[in-house]
């Protein structure tokens, strides 16, 4: 019997990095005192109306372009209705009929069999990107049987990125999300920090036999790290396979990932089968975007978003950065992948290269094997590294000049890691790790050893 084919699609909500919310002027800020960033509109006071935030539109266009999407020059806003304490208006403003961007793609890389040396590139299709409002937060206080509602987050702009079910496992899903995260951070359209809720991922998982139609899918929510995403997806795939092999069925349900237990559990029935009663948002005219060709002659620039203008100003995306690193420094693709993947590591590497005579191809080894592994071991970010790029450069210079051996250099590195403020030169002197360069001295020592032997 042919093995099961798992199918994974993703719905990713990225909080837009902007000063104010999508439709109102209140501030966007993480961890502010509860209900301190709520405008009349956010609180759904009757008579208030939405006003579209230009920066949010630009962020979505940037992201759409970076993901190779077609930007819809005309997109529409809709109301999605459901009742919940964290949704003051009783509906969310989103883009259901015609979103701002469609039909894109995202390329990401994976290591085969965990070997850094074998990387393969995969692509996932981007179905669409839509602008929508974030909801507030509700905290359930079961002890006092009450619900506490904080509306600070209500109305913050989100980009929902929908990835088609082109992925097959947790690793692929994680890699795709990681790449999206890097892209968003490079663009600045979202800071995409999962721990702060700026990037939230829901996974749609199903399995089927090859040649047969797709199976029933479940939605897995409540995943708040990339690591957990891989775990959750893989667990769910396994669970579905076991269920089906034991003659059971997969229910079309929403499940939450329990990170402590490492498994998915059915979510307390929040909605059942909801009919969101979508309706066009009557208070927002269609969103019209222009490009160089369609831009009318005398317009107020404040009122217009020009797609081409944004395209011209896009920064180098991660894939471009990697390619440039390979070309510039002669390092391997998997090396540049690791560099770009770690926040600040590329900069660190380039700083070292600048300050040392050692070839980049050799420097990279130190960066990835020594520095990075130490950082990972101690759960530190590049910014928190006790060894600065200058210190490392000094060390590598000593090695390059032949003043110390490579094993000595490793020892010096360990000392530097302690962060006691000593320079590599000081450590070398302290530990007497200098390589002897003097030919005559070396000859004398060798002769002495030989002579000793002779006597025995």
């Amino acid at each position: 019997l042919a093995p099961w084919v798992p199918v994974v699609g993703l719905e990713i909500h990225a909080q837009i990095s902007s000063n104010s919310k999508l439709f109102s002027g209140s501030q966007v800020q993480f961890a502010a005192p509860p209900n301190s960033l709520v405008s009349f509109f956010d609180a759904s006071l009757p008579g208030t109306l939405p006003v579209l935030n230009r920066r949010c539109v630009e962020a979505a266009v940037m992201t759409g372009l970076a993901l190779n999407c077609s930007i819809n020059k005309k997109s529409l806003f809709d109301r999605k209705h459901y009742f919940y304490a964290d949704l003051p208006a009783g509906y969310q403003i989103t883009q259901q009929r015609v979103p701002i961007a469609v039909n894109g793609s995202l390329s990401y890389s994976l290591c085969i069999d965990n070997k850094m040396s074998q990387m393969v590139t995969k692509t996932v299709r981007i179905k669409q990107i839509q602008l929508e409002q974030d909801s507030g937060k509700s905290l359930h206080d079961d002890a006092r049987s009450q619900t506490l509602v904080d509306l600070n987050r209500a109305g913050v702009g989100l980009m929902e990125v929908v990835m088609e079910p082109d992925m097959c496992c947790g690793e692929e899903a994680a890699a795709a999300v990681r790449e999206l995260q890097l892209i968003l951070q490079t663009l600045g359209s979202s800071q995409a920090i999962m721990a702060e809720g700026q990037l939230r991922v829901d996974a749609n998982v199903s399995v089927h036999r090859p040649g047969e139609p797709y199976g029933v899918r479940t939605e897995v929510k409540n995943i708040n790290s990339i690591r957990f995403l891989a775990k959750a997806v893989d667990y769910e795939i396994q669970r579905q396979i076991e269920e089906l092999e034991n003659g059971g069925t997969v229910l079309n349900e929403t499940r939450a990932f329990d990170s402590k237990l490492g498994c998915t559990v059915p979510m307390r029935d929040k909605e059942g089968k909801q009919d969101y009663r979508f309706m066009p948002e009557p208070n927002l005219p269609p969103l019209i975007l222009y490009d160089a060709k369609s831009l009318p002659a005398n317009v107020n620039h404040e009122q217009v978003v020009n797609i081409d203008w944004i395209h011209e100003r896009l920064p180098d995306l991660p894939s471009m950065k990697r390619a440039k690193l390979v070309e510039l420094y002669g390092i391997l693709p998997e090396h540049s992948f690791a560099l770009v993947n770690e926040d600040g590591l590329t900069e660190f590497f380039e700083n070292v290269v600048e300050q040392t005579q050692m070839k980049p191809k050799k420097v990279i080894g130190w960066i990835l094997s020594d520095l990075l592994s130490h950082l990972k071991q101690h759960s530190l970010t590049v910014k928190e590294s006790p060894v600065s790029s200058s210190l490392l450069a000094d060390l590598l210079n000593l090695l390059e000049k032949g003043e110390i051996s490579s094993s000595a250099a490793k020892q010096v590195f360990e000392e530097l890691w302690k962060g006691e403020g000593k320079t590599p030169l000081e450590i070398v002197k302290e530990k007497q790790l200098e390589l002897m360069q003097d030919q005559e001295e070396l000859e004398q020592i060798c002769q002495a050893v030989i002579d000793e032997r002779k006597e025995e």
Partner: protein
Amino acid sequence: QISAALKEGQVTATELCQRCLSLVRSTKFLNAYITVAEETALQQAEESEKRYRRGQPLGVLDGIPVAVKDNFSTAGIETTCASNMLKGYISPYNATVVQKLLDQGAVLLGKTNLDEFAMGSGSTDGIFGPVRNPWSYSRQYKEKSVPKSDPEHEESSWVIAGGSSGGSAAAVSSFTCFAALGSDTGGSTRNPAAHCGVVGLKPTYGLISRHGLIPLVNSMDVPGILTRCVDDAAVVLGSLAGHDPKDSTTIQDTFQPFELPSLADVSKLSIGIPKEYHAPGLSGDVLAAWSRAADLFKNAGAKVVEVSLPHTRYSIVCYHVLCTAEVASNMARFDGLEYGHRSDMNKSTESMYAATRREGFNDVVRGRILSGNYFLLKQNYENYFVKAQKVRRLIANDFVKVFGSGVDVLLTPTTLSDAVPYVEFIKEDNRTRSTQDDILTQAANMAGLPAVSVPAALSGRGLPIGLQFIGRSFQEKQLLTVAKWFEKQVKFPMIQLEEVKRHEHGVLQHQKSASFS
């Protein structure tokens, strides 16, 4: 005229305010006002007086007492929408139109009565009770309809003010203020204007900001203007119109306030008479007034042509679907969490929501929410909502065609008949009444066009009949110029109210002379 009087010092703003407040008190039985903001009004009047003394009034509206329908947000003054859901709700901000009036120095007397959440055509279905049409107590009506001095009969013969902006219309009609704001979604400003014998203007959708107007149907609502003469309506329009960044549905173009010319020559005008507006149920009096008006224009040299708006008969059904759908959506925010009524039920969030909404809304509102949600269900959306949108497009296109064929302004009745007695009106339910009464006014909201009701004549029962002019989008100047000419020809009689007579004063002559501009 009153503005001139203020300027010349013939009357002070404070005196004027006090007179009006006193009239409000003595006409309390009309139930036109929900909240009277006496203290703040007098303060505003004092400020205005200071400005006049310095010779620096803010404009024509400085010191003029006005009233505002209770579905406009007013900072610091209760805004109830005549509903339990918002009883005690004090908005922290002013609606843009309210702010504009205040910025011009107008004196806000209070908030006027309406049908709950503006749903209705009689101003009878609010929690504060029905509004009584001031003409119920006029000599004209009493002479024609009420048997001599039978107090019991008098009590049961009072007629409705029309709706849903009945309070505002009654307030203007009974001289308690010089202008009032209403709202118009299906005729809610023009209908009560016609019944109360005042001018009711529905501006083009997108001309005046809706920010702060608690919505009924976002895609059709407009703030409405009620005054005693057409010139006054133009003045108020001038102070309110224009782009508001807080309302994304207002047009960007700069608005130029205008003064209405006195038309001498109407021979260049083309007046259209839509045959579909000869609706079943149109009373003999209204039909006669309409005919006479058409003749008036014809005899003065204007081109009067019959035109057709073939999709008129679908407008009520279409309105029904679109209105209830939006209502269902707009009312979703009333859950008792952030503001307004919150039920004591606290077993769960859901049960609290349900109880709050059951307690807070009347039958009419709840009925429309249920219908609206039905039409928005996934399985029904195409067949109802989308179809209705398409029909709406057809209705709007009817007007485009007619205006495109050379017609400048359309002339139609505003209501099917004069105001009916309250006891008659309540025999039918709100939905039936709305269906019947909106037929002549509804289509202008569908198409977003400007329309104005002007008092034309008294009916056989001594009650006002209004006629409606519908104009081209954003052509309020042309529309009101024609309306003003008509008003001049007609010389509609002034209401003769006993209560007002008792307060006869020199100052009051100014008020009764109907205009402030």
